[in-house]
């Protein structure tokens, strides 16, 4: 097994990268100065060494607690539940959310063998209980797919008895789109979720 083949094999395990793309990337690296490749290697090395899930919320960070959980200015009373750390980034970029997060690490998906046990649900409930009533609202930001919906319904059932208000991200017509191009079931949701002006 040559070094090139090794790297190609490792790269092609990543989503969206097949053997062809992986080979192209390797050849690109070989064309540049060896320095660049070493820098990439060191960056990957420290990624594996230093980055880990936050003990509190499951988001990625480099210490026991992630940057968001360490930030004393973040509002403790609102908790936003997302499927993955990727979504934390999406919401953070808006700059509009000042509460904290909780990362489930997936969604209920019996077809893939993922039930509540496989998700970070226990941690979420412990967090809410441990806050002794200071968590006033939990926003369920799972995706609006069949599985995301079921995950939200499941979580709602578990969280509500603990006290906090449980809310769900709104669904409907995306910003900047034209009603003409929106599919029927989205319009149905939007009609059901219409609000007073």
């Amino acid at each position: 097994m040559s070094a090139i083949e090794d790297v190609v094999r490792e790269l092609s395990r990543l989503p969206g990268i097949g053997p062809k793309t992986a080979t192209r990337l390797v050849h690109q690296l070989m064309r540049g100065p060896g320095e660049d490749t070493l820098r990439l290697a060191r960056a990957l090395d420290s990624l594996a060494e230093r980055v880990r899930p936050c003990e509190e919320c499951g988001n990625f960070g480099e210490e026991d607690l992630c940057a968001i959980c360490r930030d004393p200015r973040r509002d403790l009373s609102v908790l936003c539940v997302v499927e993955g750390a990727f979504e934390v980034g999406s919401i953070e970029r808006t700059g509009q959310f000042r509460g904290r997060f909780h990362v489930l690490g997936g969604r209920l998906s019996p077809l893939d063998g993922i039930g509540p046990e496989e998700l970070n649900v226990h941690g979420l409930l412990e967090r809410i209980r441990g806050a002794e009533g200071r968590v006033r609202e939990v926003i369920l930001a799972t995706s609006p797919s069949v599985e995301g919906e079921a995950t939200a319904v499941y979580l709602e059932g578990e969280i509500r008895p603990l006290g906090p208000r449980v809310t769900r991200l709104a669904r409907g017509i995306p910003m900047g789109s034209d009603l003409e191009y929106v599919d029927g079931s989205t319009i149905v949701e939007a009609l059901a979720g219409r609000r007073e002006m």
Partner: protein
Amino acid sequence: MRLSHLSLRSFRNLGDQAFAVPSEGFALVGDNAHGKSNLLEAVYYLETFRSFRGARDRQLIAFGYPFFRIEGELTSPEPDRGGTRVAAAYERSTARKKVVVDGVEVERLGDGIGHVGAVIFSPADITLVSSGPSERRRFLDILLSLNARGYLDHLQRYRQALERRNVALRRGEPPAAVSPWNAPLLRHGSAVTELRLDWVRTYERSFRATYEAVSGGASAWMEYRCSFELPNSPPSAGMAEESPGVFVAAGPGRGEVAEAFEDALLRSAERERRRGWTVVGPHRDDVFIGLGSPEEGLDLRQFGSGGQRRTAALALRLVEGETIRQVRKRAPIILMDDVFAELDEGRSERLLSLLDEQAIGQVLLTAPKDADIRLRADTLPRWRIRSGEVST
């Protein structure tokens, strides 16, 4: 709508052929295994984008070819009313199906179905009435996907929820992890149930009358048998009429049927846990077909003769045509695959006069012998087929 032009590329044994189709239709005569049914299969493919014989798409490609393509042109019988072009193609290597309606590729197949407005009669229809409930559910599912707005969408969502719920049950997940699938199951499942019930109740009379007309007097009836107990008052399936000027207040899947379904689901929790799958819902329903009067309660599947079963299957297809006429406000295109060979003289005659009475539109039929073609006083243009080659 009439089929005015059909062109085929490497479809089954028909190869590459194109023909203009006469507005009254044609009678295709040829020996068995020369491709008669294949031609009707191609036409009906444009309606549902699936083989009516249950063949897989790759089996429809001519041997040794990479893909098949079917294109049909539909024209309205009234002049000045535009037509529609529907094309479907399937490629073996990519397993990709492409459907184009009037030059625009449809995003979801469901958006392209139902442009032809055809009903197909075939000898295999006998399984509609003699096999288990799944055949009759399939009949309703196809019929309603083509003729009831929103049905296909509800059906697909119902199946998604059902599949996940069943896996959760089989895995022995705690009730709290099974119940999140209840909401989509109940909502889409009751919409499916309501639309089916509505169809059976609306067309029950028509079924009975059609059966009587074909059988020459004897009667039969049909009834939707639900896996859970339904409320007594007939539900209103479609839009809630009483909601004044508001968007559908209740809408399908949110009324009494939904409540009855939910009750049944909750009551069956113990049973489904034991068995590992969802035991109530429209995936367990049936259309019961009885002989004589409902009081006699005779099950056609148990007590029906071959002739009675054939008549019931024909009646279902004729009522399907009636549905197209009512819902789409136009005569269906009738496809008949070797139907008369199986019927006795009297039934054939009565079926023919019934079809003539119904002011049918275009008729495409196949038969192995000239003698079997008696429709329309034998005036249909006669086409021949030999080894897949059609001569008009």
